[in-house]
């Protein structure tokens, strides 16, 4: 089984073409605006039919086990284990349905979020029309009167070319959150 993420391959990859880099970043900025302006249906429409939205659980591991992200004793839970998210199109549609319900108390009133996406590194995709993209995010959430949550992490996406308005669909998103114990009362937002 391959590691969750081949980080060495990403680090050593050549810089992407400037126009492509610009195009992908502009996609992310617009995607962030959808999330930050609670345009739920438009954001969910960006998820392709084979979407895998995945967020494993992160654990504290002493380095004596070797590379903490190695396969023997990984820092992240594996695909057969518990995760924060492990969703396909059907379950993501259920999450959308929850968000659109009048009874979705965790997001009604809606959180105010700010998704900041940077450190975008594009590598070749496995299909002709896909790109693998690694990025970093900081997401600020302010909710109700005084609740503030801060999430930071890494995203590993497979973007697929699309004739939609933003030019891409998201075929796969693996979110590596920089928290072991989740420091919020829930994760009712998306990254």
């Amino acid at each position, binding site marked *: 089984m391959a590691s969750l993420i081949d980080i060495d391959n990403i680090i050593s990859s050549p810089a992407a073409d400037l126009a492509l880099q610009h195009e992908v970043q502009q996609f992310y900025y617009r995607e962030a605006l959808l999330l930050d302006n609670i345009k739920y249906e438009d954001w969910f429409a960006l998820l392709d039919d084979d979407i895998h939205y995945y967020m494993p659980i992160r654990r504290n591991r002493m380095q004596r086990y070797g590379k903490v992200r190695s396969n023997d004793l990984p820092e992240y839970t594996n695909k057969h284990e*518990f995760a924060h998210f492990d969703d396909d199109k059907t379950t993501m549609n259920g999450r959308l349905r929850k968000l659109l319900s009048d*009874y979705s108390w965790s997001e009604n009133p809606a959180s105010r979020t700010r998704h900041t996406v940077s450190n975008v590194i594009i590598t070749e995709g496995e299909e002709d029309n896909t790109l693998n993209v690694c990025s970093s995010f900081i997401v600020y959430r302010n909710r109700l009167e005084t609740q503030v949550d801060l999430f930071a992490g890494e995203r590993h996406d497979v973007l697929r070319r699309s004739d939609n308005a933003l030019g891409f669909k998201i075929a796969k998103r693996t979110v590596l959150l920089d928290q072991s114990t989740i420091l919020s009362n829930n994760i009712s937002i998306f990254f």
Partner: protein
Amino acid sequence: MNTEANSNSTWSNDDIKKLVSDENGTLDARIYNDEALYELELERVFARSWILLGHEDHIPNAGDFLNTYMGEDPVLLVRQKDASLRVFLNQCRHRGMKLSRDDSGNAKAFVCTYHGWAHDISGELIDVPFEEQAHCDRLDKHEWSPLQARVATYRGLIFANWDEEAPSLDEYLSDSKPYIDVMFNRSEAGTEVIGGMQKSIIPANWKLAAEQFCSDMYHAGTMSHLSGVEAGLPEGVALNDIEIPNEGNQFRAKWGGHGTGYFVDQPGLLQAIMGPIVTDYVTTSPQAEAASKRMGSSMFGQRMMGQHMTIFPTCSFLPGINTIRTWHPRGPNAIEIWTFIVVDADAPEHIKEEFRKQNIRTFSTGGVFEQDDGENWIEVQKVFRGNKARKTKFNVQMGLGDSTTEHPDFSGRIGGVYSEDAARGFYQHWLRMMTEPSWDTLKP
């Protein structure tokens, strides 16, 4: 243990007894927010009760360990070479540094990273650097080993208790065992863990969560989880099209504050949470029929649905959904929630996978059900900042006086599914733990 030892508390036993009334179904909100009461809880509840630490399957091999907590005390749970279990304080007796900082793993020894005091996997201090020069051989290593707790298991679940005089786990579980067995004794193979412990910290009192899992089917049947239900409905089916179940029962343990509730023959809520595959597996499949045979009751094997349960104080689980968690207290205003998933060890792989995916979808920190629990609990806690709000008298009167011990299908003290008798039992036991210093009066 003499609870009178904490004599500097501002709370007298007489005052604490006024906070909860089993007879009238009332409680005072200060039990959820008072700092001094919380300090007493750590000593009188958490240092005297059996606390869920994990599952045997978390630590199958010698040296396997889990770093966890009893109340706010960090402890190491370690599998020994003879397959027995040890639990000891994760604190060096020299200057108090943790002996291990891995969430879990396998160890041959636990060496303090401050000055290097080394301990074997049973928690015994075995080696001290420069022992000859520093201690001139006067150090009694056994005496200066970390504090050990009692450990006991029930159906694969591992509990620990600091109090030498507390009743055995067996006695402690009282008459609640048949209701635990619905989740943990379905087959000869027992249960196994789906790897990974989910942890989150939320600003709410531990009793809000523990009591909800003990006694509160009401929130599921009314308002809290409507959008969670909606998230699991097939396309084209609206919330108005479905009927929320209302037939079922609630059980209040005769001793210990444990409680559970469930629908009978109404799979609606279970369906909405786990979907058709798991629902069929736990209610109609050959494995479900085998569970009935094993338990000698189709009621316990197949017909109780959407069950919630708490073993006092902080062990909660949902049979059929198979989430299990410990609500570790973090002051009066916070809980650290540690959640894991179990499955029947002999279930087909696709069933195990379905349990895993549906738990992530529903009862995890991002789950479409749990999200809204987190919202309720922290909002309740915020309101307690008010001078009036923090001491409001709350109503816990549903089903008051309606329970019977002569139900044809269910053993013990039984009320209706929307009763709060189990909540009253939970708080009554809390009150007894808080005010009765001796097991002579408190024991089952």
